[in-house]
């Protein structure tokens, strides 16, 4: 009895305290630890019917946008809204897509705010698992919003959207580079107080935003700025082309040396399937006077976003995560061309690839927050092993507060790549068709497999193309190279405005089954030191 009494006096208060701590923390955090908030929700990738996605998500979106104003939205609101917006855009409903993208932009906090506010808000949202998206998701949100505005003829705000996409993209690597140092004309200067001083290193592979910003300026009547923007665009394209040429292995990164004094961070990461920079040549070859004749822009959004996956030892909730996977040519379009009225109009420039965004930059601010949480978790666990009861209690509190479970929720319908074609098309009704080129046709037509343009199709035209596709599909109904790749529309072209055509790649069930179970993951690239510090 005595022993039992002793045990009661020693153990029970501890158990009680643990219980109290757990309950009080769970009340305080009011569901922050809810597991369902951390699950990837609404992954509608693999769809072949964007209209079905729109119908499916519409009630939830209406409730979020119109029905519950003033209330703090659910933690997954961003994912729901963005999937709906992406599906609306794929259906050609630009007005609706613009409205929802703008709601999402307002929903996400401004990560570009200063050190105190930006980071504080990031950490807070990370703690309560309010979905805020990775930097590349935010950039794409702005970019797709801008495409909607372009189509609607609001060129001034479209320019804002593309500038913001570029700025957010800068941030995504700035989260690292800003912490490490600053590059200026005088060279690299390490930061000692975690203070960004401007001019930080930026990843310049968001070429699509530069191109579209130029067109926005042009159609807003701001020729001077358009000219400057186009010069900048061509400089970025040249950097990308140089980087692509330097890559010897498909998964190798490239150092960045084309600008003197630039911090050698792997700012460009060329995808394994991005064979040659020939598609960028269109941008490099187009001078400003020729660009001014542009009245048509075709955008082809292909592939699926880099997937966030859990990696590392699955010990309890402690996981690291990287976000990188890539669809092979058989699973997605990597090179595309445009047919206008059955005639080949040229390749579409592969202007943006999120693969590089996710893999080539090192950890984002959110990744770093996640790493920090793991470290905090370790501290909490160590404190719990301490002999002193009060210290144990503190350790317990730390573990209860610190939600270190990896957040792998993501925007399901986010495309991986953006291909652009721009040029002059005579006024009138035309049929536009996006067709896959190059490696996408490896097994269907060996004759056109190669690095560049599918030359035979220039002659045989769209109908022959389609016939061949159908034949292939009939022979192999589950063949991954299905006719889904061929996207077309018939529309009236005007000389007086920028005619915008948006095509979203459609995925079929076969692709979904073939790839979802076997994600390829790559570790983030090793950190590189600035020149002189190696």
């Amino acid at each position, binding site marked *: 009895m005595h022993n039992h009494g002793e045990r009661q006096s020693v153990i029970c208060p501890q158990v009680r305290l643990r219980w109290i701590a757990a309950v009080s923390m769970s009340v305080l955090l009011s569901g922050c630890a809810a597991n369902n908030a951390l699950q990837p929700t609404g992954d509608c990738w693999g769809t072949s019917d964007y209209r079905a996605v729109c119908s499916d998500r519409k009630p939830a979106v209406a409730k979020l946008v119109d029905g519950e104003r003033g209330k703090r939205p659910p933690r997954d609101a961003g994912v729901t809204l963005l999937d709906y917006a992406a599906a609306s855009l794929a259906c050609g409903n630009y007005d609706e897509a613009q409205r929802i993208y*703008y709601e999402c932009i307002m929903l996400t906090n401004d990560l570009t*705010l*200063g050190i105190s506010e930006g980071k504080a808000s990031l950490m807070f949202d990370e703690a309560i698992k309010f979905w805020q998206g990775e930097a590349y998701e935010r950039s794409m949100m702005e970019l797709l919003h801008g495409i909607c505005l372009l189509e609607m003829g609001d060129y001034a*705000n479209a320019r*804002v*959207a593309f500038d913001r996409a*570029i*700025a*957010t993209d800068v941030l995504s690597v700035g989260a690292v580079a800003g912490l490490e140092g600053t590059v200026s004309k005088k060279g690299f200067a390490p930061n000692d107080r975690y203070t960004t001083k401007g001019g930080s290193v930026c990843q310049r592979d968001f070429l699509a935003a530069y191109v579209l910003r130029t067109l926005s300026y042009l159609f807003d009547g701001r020729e001077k700025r358009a000219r400057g923007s186009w010069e*900048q665009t061509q400089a970025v394209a040249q950097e990308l082309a140089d980087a692509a040429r330097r890559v010897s292995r498909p998964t190798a990164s490239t150092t960045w040396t084309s600008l003197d004094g630039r911090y050698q961070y792997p700012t460009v990461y060329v995808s394994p399937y991005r064979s040659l920079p020939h598609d960028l040549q269109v941008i490099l070859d187009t001078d400003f006077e020729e660009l001014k004749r542009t009245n048509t822009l075709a955008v082809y959004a292909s592939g699926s976003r880099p997937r966030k996956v859990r990696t590392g030892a699955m010990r309890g909730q402690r996981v690291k995560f990287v976000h990188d996977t890539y669809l092979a040519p058989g699973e997605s379009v990597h090179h595309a061309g445009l047919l206008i009225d059955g005639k080949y109009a040229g390749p579409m420039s592969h202007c943006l690839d999120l693969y590089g965004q996710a893999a080539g930059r090192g950890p984002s601010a959110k990744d770093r927050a996640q790493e920090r949480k793991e470290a905090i978790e370790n501290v909490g666990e160590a404190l719990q092993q301490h002999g002193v009861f009060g210290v144990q209690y503190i350790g317990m509190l730390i573990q209860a507060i610190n939600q270190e479970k990896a957040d792998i929720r993501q925007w399901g319908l986010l495309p991986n790549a953006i291909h652009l074609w721009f040029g002059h098309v005579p006024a009138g009704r035309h049929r536009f068709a996006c067709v896959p080129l190059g490696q996408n046709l490896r097994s269907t037509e060996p004759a056109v497999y190669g690095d560049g343009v599918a030359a035979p199709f220039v002659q045989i035209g769209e109908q022959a193309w389609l016939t061949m596709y159908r034949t292939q599909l009939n022979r192999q109904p589950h063949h991954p190279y299905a006719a889904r790749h061929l996207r077309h529309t018939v529309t009236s072209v005007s000389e007086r405005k920028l005619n915008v055509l948006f095509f979203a790649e459609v995925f079929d069930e076969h692709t979904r089954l073939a790839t979802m179970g076997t994600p390829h993951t790559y570790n983030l690239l090793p950190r590189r030191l600035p020149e002189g510090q190696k």
Partner: protein
Amino acid sequence: MGERLHGQDGYATLDASVLGNPVKDVSRRPVSRLSLLGLAILTLGVTTTVGCKAPVEAGEVELMRGGIFSETEIDRVGDLMARDLVRDPVFFKGQEPPKIGFVKVQNDTNQYMFGDVREAYVVRMRTQLKRALRDRVIFINQDVERRLAAQLAAWHIGETRVSELCDDIDEDIEVDYFLTAQFSSLPKVVHVAEGKDKYHTLNIVELLMTFSLINSETAELVWQNDLTTAAAFSRRDFRD
């Protein structure tokens, strides 16, 4: 009594703190306890409005919170600009009141500025000016104003010559002055004192709002004023 403005020769005198009062006979109105009370309430109101923005001291820079195109900010800017413009001689030198068209609001920042915000500036300034000047100003019909704005779409402040304003306007549009607004932003680094010989740096963005009144015939700039607002640093607010 607050801020009483004595007009120059030949111009009506305005009580700038009470914009809504009619122009005529204002200078002769006796200073009553009621007006003093009104002024006190107005001052309190303005103070409260500014206080709502919860300014943050950053050295000598007062930082605003919230969006740079928030309702409070639009009202504040619209009011201040109208107060300044209402004193301009252009409204009092001729027999006929000038006809004004608000033709351009140019956004060079990285913040979205949709039609309702753009319209809000225009409406606020137009309302305040009309209230203060009554029959001393005529604002052209809004349909005509839209037509005019469309004609001047290719004209951009700071990029196109001001003289080009007058070139392509239809003759049937009668307008004496164009009113324009330009919003641009500038990143800055300020030092915030932490104690003796100690400070830390803070990145801010300064929003510069410039309003101009331009003679539609001579392209002469007859009035211009600007206002700055400092906000916490945001990379979205300036171009790459």
